[in-house]
């Protein structure tokens, strides 16, 4: 089995996977990082979004071997030792989550947006989140949370 070296949430990891192992399978099953969820088999729902080298990707549609040498950040690594990342705080504060299943992917996707655009408009947020499906909230509070989180991130850096 191929041995893969990569950085996950700031820690250098060496993982044995098969070529066909998906990135999300490696995260959930090999590394026990179950905060990244899987909601579909066809790359639509976005519950599995993580950052690879800072860019949001659907980890169900990427092979683990394709992440060789990369830096992967999951919801568990986002706060980086702090209590909560500003985007997580914003989702919690603005009731941007109900069942919470889409939340990790939603938050990771939003962080990527905020890194590109520190003050996104409502429309920009809605366009960016097209690949993250939520079935509970009607997106209303998610959009509010992402805007607030992006502003807080800008303020923090």
């Amino acid at each position, binding site marked *: 089995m191929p041995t893969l070296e990569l950085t996950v949430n700031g820690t250098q990891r060496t993982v044995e996977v098969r070529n066909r192992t998906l990135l999300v399978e490696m995260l*959930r*099953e090999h590394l*026990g*990082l*179950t*905060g*990244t*969820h*899987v*909601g*579909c*088999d*066809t790359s*639509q*729902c976005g*519950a599995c979004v993580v950052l690879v080298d800072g860019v949001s990707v659907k980890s169900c549609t990427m092979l683990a071997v394709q992440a060789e040498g990369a830096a992967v950040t*999951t*919801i*568990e690594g986002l*706060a980086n030792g702090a209590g*909560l990342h500003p985007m*997580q*705080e914003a*989702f*919690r*504060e603005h*009731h941007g*989550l*109900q*069942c*919470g*299943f*889409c*939340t*990790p992917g939603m*938050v990771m996707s939003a962080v990527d947006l905020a890194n590109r655009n520190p003050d996104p408009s409502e429309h920009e*947020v*809605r*366009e960016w*989140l*097209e*690949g*993250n*499906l*939520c*079935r*509970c*909230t*009607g*997106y*209303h*509070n*998610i*959009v509010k949370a992402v805007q607030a989180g992006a502003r807080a991130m800008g303020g923090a850096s």
Partner: protein
Amino acid sequence: MIRPAAGGAAQAPEALSVVGRRMRKVDGLAKATGRARYTDDIALPGMLHGKILRSPHPHARILAIDTSRAAALEGVHAVVTGRDMPTTYGIIPWTPDEHPLCVDRVRYVGDGVAAVAAVDEDTANAALELVEVAYEELPAYLDPHDAIAAADGPFIHEPRKPGRNGNVTKVVKLAFGDVEAGIAAAREEGGVVVEGDYFFEGTTHTPIEPHCAIGLADASGKLTVWSATQVPHYLHRELARVLELDPAMVRVVQPPVGGAFGGKSEPFDLEFCVAKLSMITGRPVKILYTREEVFYSHRGRHPFHMRYRTGARADGVLAAVDAEIVMDGGAYASFGLVTTYYSGQLLTAPYQMPAYRFHSTRAYTNKPACGPKRGHGSVQPRFAFEVQLDRIAEALEIDPIELRRRNALGEGTRTVNDLRVTSNGFLECLAMVEDASAWRRKFRRLPYGRGVGVAGSTYISGTNYPVYPNDMPQSAVQLQVDRSGRVAVFSGASEIGQGVDSMVAYVVAEELGVPLDHVRVFAGDTDFTPVDLGAYSSRVTFMLGNACIDAARRVKRQVQKVVAEAWDAKPQEVLLAGGLAVRAGDTGTQMPIREAFNLAEAAFGALGATGSYDTPKDVHGSYRGATIGASPAYSFTAHVAEVEVDPETGFVDVVQIWIAHDCGRALNPVLVEGQMEGSAYMGFAEAIMEEQIFKTADQGRAGLHNAPSLLDYRIPTSLDTPALRSLIVESIDPEGPYGAKEAGEGPLHPSIPAIANAIYDAVGVRMNALPFSPPRVWRALQAEAARTPAARSAATPAAVS
């Protein structure tokens, strides 16, 4: 008679210190950090993976199943078939027509036939391919009318009584008042009678979390099942019954659920299979549905074929309503008996009807079983009826909001079918959406392509009776107070994202005066929580909230008594709030709540209480079926939707929905708004894009799901979803906890007819069939243009004064 409030509804808002404030959810932190553990996140040592073999045929007899090759495959630990679990079950005890795995007949493409447990998913999948099943295909029914017409069979189910049609689950015919006289009067007195045919396409819940279950039978014979269910108690009962276990030896654990919407509200094949496979292997077994299997498990919105006849007098006041409904139930009964009643019973508010009749028939078809989806049974008729009202308003030249106002039922009354209505904030809902949407400036006044529409609705706050007859409480909690000042609440209710655990914490914090983060809610484990019947029919806030108040006030009385003695005061002078016990009118006299608890424990022994709630039984009529639809309280809703129709493509852009909802009292307005937005979104989704449809024989394979994936089944994204504006109306129900009623299902209903009515306002076509997808709207526009060549140029229909 309205019973005195169990929940202290009469309390003035200023007397409340927690309830009514905008607060965070108690589980927000775990969910925002990825630390919430859903069922599939659980991995137990030695766990096996299970898979279920599913039928490729819509209807066939099982002649033989050979599992020997599968069982012999290396890594396979067990294979089971229907014969290993021959007891039938069904969520409604009168219609047990399902087996965990099919025994001698498959009834839809996707019906479970055999299950395997293996060391990993690949091996399990490989083993499925080695299971050999010999089928004899039977004629398949895909249309409910065909199924009903085949009165002599062949039947999808053997008739429960000889001579009955085995393709019919249930027929309900009920009549209240003289419908024909009402219709005749409407005709004679310058009124109007509107007739219409409507079709509501099936849709499915599509929670983002697929169903998942883990079974573990231990050496003592005790079975534990973890499951993403919204009904742990009913699952507990059915597991024991079907697997022939003593219920005392069964434990159901419900981890956080990643969305349900009614789609996880009865037992499913995977729960029985993980249990049985674990009982055989002695190892934990997990089954996680693929997204495709979620579509097969379904239990979603029934397709409804509806015909309505509605008569109104010249002043717009309703004279009679007559409905004929054929429901496409799919392969099994599910909640269908209830659905059939709900299709008629829940239409009788928020409008007064002097005469009402409905005739509903639920047919079996060879498709995945339909069941309860958010707004169970009443979303479809509401669509048809509110479009009927729009047509009446137009015919009588009355503004549609005014028409609804004239027909409003009022509070403290009974409906035509004898349901007791307590609080009712419908008129305020109408006024709020009228103002907020600038209705008067928009209705019939916007340019061609743009329009507004209105609709109203009602929904139950729980059902008056549990699904199996019993006289025990519908909901209960147990409360335990620690010497540290921390309060633990053991709640049987199911957190499925709606915020029930938070609601429990708010109520207990309110009553006992402890800080919110000193309330710990332990929920979803039948081994250490009292029974709550489940997260369905919008029952939880009303029932569990009252149970929490009951329990908390028992403890509170003890604390007040002992502190009052210490202060030489009256018990009612002891207030518990903000982490303190305070003497009323003398805030200088106070002690930390912990000390108060310690005094009470010293006086009474360990501090704790149980609390429960059961429904009042005098809230409905006495005719057969009168209990179904009866609820301790009803919520009311009104929506205005604004749409922009692209006449070239038929694409309907729903620009905004104004949602006014009477939830009695908002225990936490943030959560209520979240429910309103989520509901309106889901209604919008059904209106515009969702459809659970199946191939016909002409399209290749009869009964095959047309699109069992999110690649094809369309659910709205952030960009599709309209702006949503929530407007809370608080009618303060006399029996609700602090006056609260439901908020999670009612606000779905009006989205669909409000959008249909807005499309009419925009482009002058009546959309009588769902969804209002671009091709369908385009065809309607084409037909309208062919009928009246001037239609497209008739930019602005005359304004109604």
